[in-house]
């Protein structure tokens, strides 16, 4: 009897502080939004079950702190990630420019096997803000950057108004699944009794 294959995806959310990483996650997982800003300290962890095509997938979302002083967590946090979500604020030019740094940082720390094809998703958040009057990054510009980086999917979102949040995370899950490594045969060695020398006498245990 083959056990039903259950998939767990580790998703890392990165971006400057204040762009709305936690709000996006909260809107997605808890359907809640608070306009009060509370800085994430270190990281938040949430899980969400999703259906991707006919598969049931658990997303383990690692929401990191944007402030530089928490970046020391490095390798440990990024290790084994299946997808990386880069978030910026469409009303703050600098947060968009920093996407480059976040992407590089992730690739260095996580060191994925195939960096060119590692699944990223870019989210331009806060599109609702003041009706878009103060927007500093136009959609075209963002899409251009995503295309340059090997065709990263791009979504314009609002955590506050719940615009595009589900669609974005659905895409995140789908892309992370694409990155699944193929199952290979698992054939460990058999003990070689000729090489198995008589163990030295030891007292005690362990």
């Amino acid at each position, binding site marked *: 009897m083959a056990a039903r294959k259950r998939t767990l995806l580790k998703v890392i959310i990165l971006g400057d502080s204040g762009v709305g990483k936690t709000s996006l996650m909260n809107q997605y997982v808890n359907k809640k939004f608070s306009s009060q800003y509370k800085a994430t300290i270190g990281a938040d*962890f949430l899980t969400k079950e999703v259906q991707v095509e006919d598969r049931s997938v658990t997303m383990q979302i690692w929401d990191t702190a944007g402030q530089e002083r928490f970046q020391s967590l490095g390798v440990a946090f990024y290790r084994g990630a299946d997808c990386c979500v880069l978030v910026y604020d469409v009303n703050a030019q600098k947060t968009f420019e920093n996407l480059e740094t976040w992407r590089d940082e992730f690739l260095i720390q996580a060191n994925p096997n195939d960096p060119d094809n590692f699944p990223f998703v870019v989210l331009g958040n806060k599109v609702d803000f003041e009706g878009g009057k103060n927007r500093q990054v136009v959609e075209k510009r963002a899409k251009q950057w995503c295309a340059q980086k090997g065709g990263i999917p791009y979504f314009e979102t609002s955590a506050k108004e719940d615009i595009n949040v589900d669609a974005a995370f659905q895409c995140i899950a789908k892309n992370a699944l694409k990155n699944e490594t193929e199952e290979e045969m698992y054939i*460990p060695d058999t003990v070689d009794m000729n090489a198995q020398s008589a163990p030295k006498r030891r007292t005690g245990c362990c």
Partner: protein
Amino acid sequence: MSEGTQPARPADELELDTRTDSDADFASPRSFLTLDKSGGASERTVGGAASPSSSGLGSGYRSGEDSLPDAQPGSAHSLESNRQPTGDADAASRGQTEMLRRALSNAEASSSPRSEDGRDPSSRSWRAQPKHVFILSSAGKPIFTRHGDENALAGLMAVAQALVSFLKDRGDQLISARAGKHQLVVLERGPLLLVAASMLGEPIQVLSLHLELLHGQIVSILTRAFERRFQRDPGFDARTLLGGTSSVLKALLHTCETDPSSLMQAFAALPLPAAIRHAALVPLHAAVKAAGAVFGVLLAGNLVVALAQSRANPLHPLDLLLLTNFVTANGSFRQSESFSPVCLPRFNSSGFLHAYINYIHEDADLCMVLLAAQPDAFFRLSEAGQQLTAELQAAGAIQAVCEAAAGQEGGGRLRLQSVPASAGGGEFGQASLLHFVYKYPSRSQFVSPAFHAPLDNPSDQQSIMQAYSHAQAILFRHAEDGPQLGLPPHRTCFERGSKCCLLAYVGAEYEIYAAFHCLMDKAAAARTCHRLCVWLKSRQNDLFAAI
């Protein structure tokens, strides 16, 4: 335990102080979390002779309830570190410590009621489980949980990974932590992280041993070759290789809590007349030899009837424990003769042996296990197995084992009723003994009666086991410093607890752990215990297998 991995620092201990408005829980510690780090763990005493029972475990730790100022519900606060502030570096350090605290409070948040599919990890019944055990990968991906659904606990697993890697990044190591009623113990083995969170009151060493065995059981299923997978892909989901084995892991944890074999690092033999055991051992040896096998074991349930091993490669008792559990926890082996790869981690953790498993008699759970080093050995082993069955039948050994094992509670273990009254035995109401373990180290074996009235419920049995583990921790306190040579400095330990009185004694040839009714007088206990040992010694040849 490794030590000296950390640079000299003024503080060895990081105390995290958090408070939430929920019930005390390891994921949301109401009170105190004391992180024992490398080098620091061995400093903890087990409460000395004053803590005979599980209730004594709390001693030595401060409870936060009385030391904390009032807190806003839901807000974590008041963070303390002994470290002296030293400018920027410390600001970062404080930030990280704060992140740890926050991670803990988030763990509570992330397990708050929101699961819609009935696998709610924050349910009262889940939280009330006295002992949780988790296995996760070094990427923080869940692999196994003893209770609940590991996917639903992905947030908690990520927190565990964050806690461990937080200290690791600073060249340190998380070994154990105390959170409210929970003792947390962490074991890192290659790409796996094993975590125990227990309210049962086991000593840290005992929880570590359980985790070590759990890791051993995973190795027994996969060998250590799976670690290469993680080297190639740290995000690898080990559940794809471990599918269907969680019952084996859960059975092992149950055995660890209710059977002395893990604690004693020894195995128990089925009590049998010595002549019968010999009649079983001779054809078993012959079968092992004929088939070119490495080991052969006859099991009645989880008791050993006979064990054939070579002098050059003796079977480690913990390997035998893992093998026995692997066989008995897999129901499918009962269906027909089977051939399965299995790894014995202490024998060789990098490769498989191939086990021929065949149940000879269903009622007595009599089963033969022959282990060979050739993947194509099935037919040879099967043939030798049939010959073995025929010879056991002819010698009357099957019949005798059935009589000894079948239809008796405890699967043929010694019964207290058959121990003479002068040695503490007798019928219920007369026996002064509740239970005992008698270990015979030179044969890596122990004998212990089946649990019976008044120890009918599992929690009473667990508290007896806790009492044994505390006595052992006290007697062998220094044993972990190095190989144990000769006898420990203290050979006797008497503790009076709320559930029982425990007398433990380490002699030159044996160890005895005897649990009496709690009003038992110390001198009377010593006299009874002595007579018990004399009686057991006189029956030694029936109680222990020749090895």
